[in-house]
């Protein structure tokens, strides 16, 4: 076997490892029931859940509980299957949290509580064409 062949095989080997690891380390979008299932099967890896905050009849967001020292907070999130779940986040509340249309949480279940390690927010105001502030 020529050296160049060994070289080529080595490259292909590394590339395969990369592809497999990408598939293995990539996370998934799931709903709360699936996430709970995963956690009760002993998986501690982080998954993505997409959902919306719970609101009352007036459109006011409900279920937010801040810790006394403001250093952490928890909230209720409804996934696309309609299941509401309490989520805990060990960081102060992000500034645009209450205005976000959709919330992506990355984390996992600890017992019956979902602990988010990271929160991504989709805010309607950020990019959408705003109404003109006429008369300005």
């Amino acid at each position: 076997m020529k050296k160049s062949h060994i070289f080529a095989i080595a490259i292909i080997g590394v590339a395969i490892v990369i592809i497999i690891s990408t598939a293995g380390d990539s996370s998934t979008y799931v709903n709360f029931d699936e996430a709970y299932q995963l956690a009760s099967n002993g998986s501690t890896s982080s998954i993505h859940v997409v959902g919306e905050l719970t609101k009352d009849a007036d459109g006011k967001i409900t279920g937010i509980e801040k810790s006394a020292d403001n250093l952490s907070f928890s909230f209720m999130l409804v996934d696309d299957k309609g299941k509401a779940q309490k989520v805990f986040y060990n960081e102060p509340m992000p500034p645009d949290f209450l205005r976000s249309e959709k919330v992506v949480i990355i984390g996992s279940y600890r017992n019956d509580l979902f602990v988010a390690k990271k929160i991504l927010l989709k805010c309607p105001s950020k990019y959408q064409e705003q109404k003109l502030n006429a008369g300005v």
Partner: protein
Amino acid sequence: MHYLIGNLGHLSVVTAFVTSLVSAFAYWKATTATLQSKDAWLQNGRVAFYGHTFSVLAVVVTLFVIIQQHYFEYHYAYSHSDSHLPGYYLLSTFWNGQEGSFLLWMFWHVIIGVVLIKTQKSWEAPSMVVFALVQAFLTSMILGVVIPGINLKLGSSPFILLRDAINDPIFKLQPDFIPKDGQGLNPLLQNYWMVIHPPTLFLGFGLALPPFAFCIAGLWQKKYMEWVKPALPWALLAGGILGLGILMGGYWAYETLNFGGYWNWDPVENAVYVPWLVLVASIHTMITYKNSGTALKASIILTIAVFILLLYQTFLTRSGILGDASVHSFTDLGLSGQLLIYLFFFLVGAIVLSIIRWKEIPSSEKEASVYSREFWIFLGATTLCLMGFQVLMPTSIPVYNKLLSLIGIQSNLAPPANQVEFYSKFQLWFGVAVAIISGTGQFFWWKKIDKQKLKNELITPAMVTLIVFALIIAFAKIYKPTYLVLTLAGVYLIVSNAKVLLSLIKLNPKLSGGALAHIGVGMMLIGVMFSAGYSKVVSLNNSGMLISKELPTEFNRDNLLLFINEPREMAGYELEYLGERYEPRHKSGYVNKNHVDPTNNPLKVVARQDILFKGTKLYSAKDTFEIYPENTYYEIELRKNGKVSASLFPRVQINDQMGGFVASPDIKRKLSRDLYTHVSLPMNKSEEPEWGKLEELKVQMGEEFYINAKYTSSLEQVTRIDEIDGIPLAPEDVAVKAKIKVQGERETFYAEPIFLIRSKSQVGRISSEINDLGVKLTLLNILPETNEFLIGINARQKDWVVIKALEKPLINVLWLGTGVLMVGFCVAMVRRFKEFEESKKEI
């Protein structure tokens, strides 16, 4: 309404589009034409390209005039600027929108194109075909023309009127309505790095085009070997500038954003990192080819790959496909289809051309020996490509989901949950490989070297490496095995290249570019390892509180709650929050918010007293001056052993475009480490605070009393007043003002509550608040029979701020390494340009 300028701009865009096509056609004819007509076609191509250049410059000037003159009837000016932005930020407004950033890219291309026409006589026609075609595609992105019949919109014009872009009822009533002001530039981007980072990055993109153009021209004209010579210097220039542009972005993020670092492995960042890695790999294979005639095919493949990857990153960041995955990609302007065509045109074109010519490309059959320089360079280039591949695969996850959904499969694949950890764990080992390969490869400079010679060469650097390594771990206390390996590899890379550098400086300093660049890379590796791997949260709060009933786990808090004027311990410092500050627009320094009064103009405030900053007087009492009302700075004093060692001013910016507020850090820089502090939660001052129960106190004039059991206070005087806030009292009204001195932790305050009797019977009381102490004093009653005054005291929670602080060791080594890398690129580039100039003379 200024219609003319917009029409002029749009006309220039159309002209630019047409002239680029004409130029491509003429240059194409010039490559196939017979000798007699060749010159005429060349001339045509040239004239058309100059016409194109002129039109692009006209578009740039027109758009800039619209922004600079604040013509808010245009959507671009309205949505990206406002009338009080300073000039240099108006410049960054220009490329704030997607259309403008395309324009910036085109602008660099025409400049580079003109340089090519002037300098590359023998390559002009075929390479300019590629150039003109690229320009045609780019121009089409801002064309804004609807093709009649099929109703297809081609491109998004920057000259669109506001009333055509936004559907607002006011335009029905008043078609000529012009808003008085624009929406302004995102304050986050009002930073000097944002003025220079995008042009640098796009110049890097632009400079990557000539190597691609020469490569395609070489394949096309069957000049398989000759294209490398003109391409190499441009590739080096592109590598330097693009690398600089990327790092500037990282530096901006470090200074302005609050994720605690300079690199977040966000898809948008990855999308430019990958082409840069491949570009660096292509530089290496081109050098190998020039020296030994091997790796020509690899150079061709890599040079094409760089450009295609740049087009792919353009697609990723501008088509909206990253939507869910990235925090800072552009929105979809409806250009996805056009961007895909652009990508596939060059992808398919380049691949087909390569396949047709493949057999004819000369390749060297001789096996590269393990002891040859070529072998090591090739190994390094391969590692760089795999390094890029590893980043490219997961970055493209949104693309896979899209592709699968096109064939009807619902895929729920998400990017890795912890991007930083995921990418770092791979890139770290690639970094080690790169360091070992490029450290060792340098010893094969003199082509013929055998095992024995190599041993002799290696022995000194190996010894030095081990000594330096031992010193570093002794001082820095690294225990993690992966970090030990990375440090060792980094030190080896620096030491071995330093040895080569020393011998080259004696021999011929012009050749030292490579060694310098490699030393820079080694420093960057070590800087990254320390600053990222040993970054630690120093505001750690080990209170170990139980968070909730559901969760029997204790959490440590990464954030620290600071009350005003109440010192806390952190990382060996005593830390004290001193209050909120404004930044004046025209003087450097900070102004206590309690020392100014607002005016009707939100940009202006009036000084309540003389304003000092660090001993120098900024303003006198009653001065009116301008501030940045959207920015609040939180002064935090750091003390060590009772001595003030720094004042930090982390910033919170009210920013509706970013959804509320954005916090930026303040960094205390020391040679060995940075202390990085940002606000994670400011107090909401617009909410009415919750006041505690009223406490009543009878005092006599001059008598000392305590507020909140800790602030010594006394009633100094009570005077009758004739006016309240400048409004004179009615003749039958009586008002008195008390002056109460309160000794705070650091400052003496005076509260001046007012007691008012209106129409002889109605009692009114105006309380006086001392913001920094969180107390409100009221003059409740005057008791003449006992000569006493009844004072009411309310207290609230004191002002607070929640901060997070990180320590970043040796981050300066990273920045220094970046500088060395850039110098290396420059030295190498100068050498290759000279080489190319000399080769032209020989012909």
